């Protein structure tokens, strides 16, 4: 989510609440005979409000599970998640009196810091990276579909080459040519480009050696075609090497490789966009669970 001017009311309310809380805390902390304590009336109030904000921030995940429920816009929930989640840190610090000496409270505070820091990092990433996605990955697809789309791209490339060279699995075009015409040997695949047998074999060989391995495993380290500039050089040399009749197929193959490159880029950007959630979400849930237990036990003692 971009941090734009629509966040201004949230920012103002958050700052106002923070200032109000800080004033209350200072007055209470200076005047309290035993110093600020979580168990005092105001300390408990801070604790309740802080935990309520944490719960609200945590409820965003639940809200996303039921997108059709009329519980307010998800964008509004997201803004509340960002600002109230951020505000919950100082409020909980006011509750704790800026000290955490017990094992549970110390662990919870450190988790809380990690959650807030990861959340801030995530918000910055979510603000900056989506624009990068639209400019650098115009062929973006649904992230979860990428393996499926890649399989289809590979299949599409195979069919394009098969249209020139005949079926890619089984006997080579040279072998099949001995028993009849290329059209007959191709079986289900109709040969659309009429070129010499020698050129067909060369094209097939180059495809199988250079292009297909990349399409099968685009993430393989050192893949030549994963680099856009290098891929352009490879395809230019292929155009010079192969007969002009296959240039249309080469253009399509280059386009498929370019889409593969973009999908690889999309995966990288996606990891930036969502990787921080692997830290943020599990620790948030652990924090909420331990916070609930802390409240129950602390109220007892």
């Amino acid at each position, binding site marked *: 989510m971009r941090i734009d001017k629509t966040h201004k009311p949230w920012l103002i309310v958050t700052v106002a609440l923070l200032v109000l809380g800080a004033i209350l805390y200072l007055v209470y902390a200076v005047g309290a005979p*035993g110093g600020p304590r979580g168990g005092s009336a105001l300390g408990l109030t801070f604790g309740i409000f802080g935990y309520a904000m944490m719960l609200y921030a945590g409820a965003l995940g639940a809200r996303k599970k039921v997108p059709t429920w009329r519980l307010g816009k998800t964008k509004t929930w997201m803004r509340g998640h960002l600002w109230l989640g951020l505000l919950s840190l100082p409020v909980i610090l006011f509750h704790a009196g800026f000290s955490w000496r017990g094992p549970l409270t110390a662990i919870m505070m450190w988790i809380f810091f990690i959650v807030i820091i990861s959340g801030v990092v995530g918000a910055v990433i979510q603000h900056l990276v989506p624009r990068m996605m639209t400019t650098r990955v115009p062929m973006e697809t649904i992230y979860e579909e990428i393996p499926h789309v890649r399989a289809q791209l590979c299949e599409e490339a195979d069919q394009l080459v098969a249209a020139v060279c005949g079926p890619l699995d089984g006997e080579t075009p040279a072998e099949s040519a001995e028993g009849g015409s290329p059209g007959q040997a191709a079986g289900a695949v109709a040969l659309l480009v009429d070129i010499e047998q020698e050129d067909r074999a060369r094209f097939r060989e180059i495809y199988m050696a250079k292009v297909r391995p990349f399409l099968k495993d685009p993430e393989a380290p050192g893949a030549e075609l994963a680099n856009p500039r290098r891929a352009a050089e490879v395809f230019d040399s292929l155009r010079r090497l192969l007969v002009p009749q296959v240039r249309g197929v080469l253009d399509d193959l280059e386009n498929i490789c370019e889409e593969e490159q973009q999908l690889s880029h999309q995966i990288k950007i996606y990891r930036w966009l969502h990787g921080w959630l692997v830290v943020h979400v599990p620790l948030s849930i652990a924090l909420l669970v331990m916070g609930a237990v802390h409240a129950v036990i602390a109220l007892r003692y």
Partner: protein
Amino acid sequence: MAGRTRTTKKLAQRINLNYFKELHGIPRWRRILSVVLGGLGLIWLVWAVASGNPKPFNAGPVAHSHSMFGQKCSACHVSTSSYQQAVTDKQCLACHDGPIHHAEQTFVPACADCHVEHKGVFRMASTSDAACTQCHSDLAAKDKNSPPKFEAKISGFDKSHPEFLTLRAGHADPGTIKFNHQVHLDQKKGIRGPHGVVQLKCVDCHRPPGANEAWPYGTAEIVQASMTSGPVLSPGLPSRAYMAPVNYQEHCSSCHTLQFDKRFQDSVPHKEPKVVYEFVVKKLTEYIAAHPDQIHVVDEPDKRLPSRPVPPVPRNAQEWVAYKLSDAQLLLWRKACKECHSMSYPQGDEKLPEVAKARITTRWLPHASFDHQAHQMVSCESCHTKSTTSKETSDVLVPGVQVCQECHRSGANAAEARCFECHTYHDWSKEKHVNGAFTVKQLTD
């Protein structure tokens, strides 16, 4: 051959419509870790509760004085309702008394209001200033019609602490011993001691009780009769916290001898006039009994009594004793004793003079504690700034509050400035003995 096209239809056709039913990569790990971490946290805490291990929930280390309780929460936390297990005053008072602060105080706070536990290993007496200023910032007395006897508005030592009472206008040293600090501590001329001129230092006379170093400038050549040390001060306080009062035997007798007659090596005892008188009579009587040939010997006039007329020649031992006694009394009462003591002379020849009580102040700040030993890195004169220039006994040489505030103030590089550093809330003179509430077995089980 037609080029590749990316129509919406083509793109839609390659989407697997069931993709959302299965999680991959980041969302999958997010879910797994959420369950694992949330579950681990819950299991840890539930296990701690089930096994009776309070350690995870401990709000922090207890004070050093309570460390014997370890993890035994029930030693202090008792059931106060069906759910709560709070700390009550009763639990505190079961182990130690907490005498009242002042009879006029308007309310008594709960023990835990000031003595906050679980803040780490430090003194429980290290209370916050707010514990004191909740009353002392606007002091009131039980009797609304009578104003409080003490300063009514104190909000902190470095903010509004008043000048020490003894240094306020109208207050003077109540002591009656005539003493001139400037003469004794003269940096240029020094002072004549038994073996020549010496330079006295503060510590030569002002020493904590128990200090037994010899006076560095020699001992009295005239033997003292019946010498006794002064009383030990401030029982119950750190032995080296306060200075013992200066006493004649240890600090004055080397120079200020009480010799009453050149025939005797003994000085008179440094006691009340009656004892001195009897001592002198006894000495003279014994002497003349042992030396009857001295009765008719006329002494040279005593240079110490230049205005004294030469007495007639004694006719017998009684007259000899009477003349010598008269000289000795004149020398002692009108000169030697008077040099330091405030004397009064009742009418009548037979009456002995009266010596005003010394009234040496042993604690200048009776409502506060001070430890000289803790301040021994500081030279005496840097706090007691008037000590080398004071000429009058009535001068109060206690440092002012500003001197203390030079070190004891707010800020990172400052000494402790909270109230408890000098003041105690409880009046420990009223402390009652308490029988401990626990057995060794209870504490060690």
